[in-house]
């Protein structure tokens, strides 16, 4: 076991530097994932390829919803404050915090884009609430931000977590907690996979799909194989770092797919204009209907 002897000040800074570096690494791969979604590349392969380089290493290259939890958010902020107090700018850390904050606040947009319509009155099943698997720690969990966003947009949120519901109960309002993922997804318009608990990695999508109102999955942890869910179970799947793939029979979704191919300068209308995601509000005039007519 390696050990170093150092000064007290260095030891104190090592802890912050290590946490800030890891937060930056996560944020980096998350931004690469966003790029993958647009250029049609596969983030999992990017991460494996990068991770094979020993200088980079494979750890903390799992693209996801962002970082949360009881350490990274507070430690990156505290490090920044230390630097500010002595007049040093840590721009990478600043950008990491900004990027992660905007990422967690726009998770709702991903779901809206996948559903192809606003979230008002939609029943959304959030599976996994803790900031990581294997804990009941809910401090600064991203699920809190996501659920708030969904509720602000008028959605009806149901949630399940194997261990975190007791703590989540104290931090959330108007959420219906379920005793298992299947009950949670009954009648839902979409499932959001928030935490990669082992028990949430082998869900029976036939069973889920049978009772859901619409078969839509937003896989924020990159757990599920998109093609299997789309082709075998008729799901529409959004997965971080992959272009969304829509179930063939889902007409609303077909509209959306068309939209993603709209040339620059074409505006999306007809029920879709509520998108706040800037990539969906391109200036122009053509409506979705016209686009379909052209198809």
């Amino acid at each position: 076991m390696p050990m170093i002897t150092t000064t007290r000040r260095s030891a104190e800074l090592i802890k912050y530097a290590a946490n800030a570096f890891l937060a930056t690494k996560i944020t980096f791969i998350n931004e690469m994932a966003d790029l993958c979604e647009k250029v049609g590349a596969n983030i999992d392969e990017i991460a494996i390829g990068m991770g094979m380089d020993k200088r980079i290493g494979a750890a903390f290259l799992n693209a996801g919803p962002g970082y949360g939890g009881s350490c990274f958010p507070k430690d990156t902020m505290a490090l920044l404050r230390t630097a500010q107090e002595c007049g040093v700018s840590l721009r990478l850390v600043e950008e990491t915090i900004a990027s992660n904050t905007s990422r967690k606040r726009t998770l709702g947009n991903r779901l809206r884009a996948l559903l192809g319509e606003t979230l008002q009155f939609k029943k959304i099943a959030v599976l996994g609430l803790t900031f990581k698997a294997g804990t009941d720690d809910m401090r600064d969990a991203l699920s809190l931000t996501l659920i708030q966003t969904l509720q602000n947009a008028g959605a009806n949120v149901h949630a399940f977590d194997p261990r975190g519901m007791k703590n989540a109960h104290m931090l959330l309002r108007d959420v219906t907690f379920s005793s298992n993922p299947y009950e949670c997804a009954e009648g839902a318009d979409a499932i959001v996979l928030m935490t990669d608990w082992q028990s949430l990695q082998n869900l029976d999508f036939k069973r889920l799909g049978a009772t859901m109102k619409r078969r839509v999955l937003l896989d924020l942890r990159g757990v599920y194989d998109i093609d299997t869910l789309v082709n075998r179970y008729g799901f529409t799947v959004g997965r971080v770092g992959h272009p969304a793939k829509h179930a063939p029979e889902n007409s609303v979704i077909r509209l959306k797919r068309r939209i993603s191919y709209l040339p620059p300068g074409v505006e999306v209308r007809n029920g879709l204009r509520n998108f706040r995601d800037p990539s969906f509000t391109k200036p122009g005039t053509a409506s979705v209907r016209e686009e379909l007519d052209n198809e």
Partner: protein
Amino acid sequence: MKIAIIGTGYVGLVSGACFSAWGHHVVCVDVDKTRIDALNRGEVAIFEPGLTNLVESNLQSGRLQFTINLKSAVRDTDIVFIAVGTPASGHDGDADLSYVLKAAEQTALALCGPALIVTKSTVPVGSGERLEALMRSRSARRRLRGCVKSLSFCAKVRQSPISANQTVLLSAVIATGHGLCFSHSIARSLRPACR
């Protein structure tokens, strides 16, 4: 080795349970009476794989104790780990050191003999100096050897090899699975304490 752990949260409880499993006598302190009462009944409120079993078995063996009485816990201990929270304060994001300062002050007032103080909480650069000054000013006997900053990640119970012979220094290194940092001066004064 007698160890006191102040703050029985995610970090403190896991550390305490591991140290007791290695054969040390550990007293875990917290201000939260409900939590301490529950722990004394073997009820672990936080979820960490394997932790409940470890707490139960070491409670039974008598090597692990829980109390709200900081004074009795640290009075004649060899090592004190401060593992209270350092949350972001207010809106500016500074680490809130108030819990750490409070724990350090109470420790200094209660200590009767020489002891090693380890800051397990994540604290900003310069906090160790602040703590040391505070503790020296409060320590009745002025016999503090100094402070150590321990750099550590949440010790995972399942990774813990169990050996009664290990010194705390060694245990702590193994518990982290990552690096551990000690200041030179303290590492020197630490050696006799660990034998």
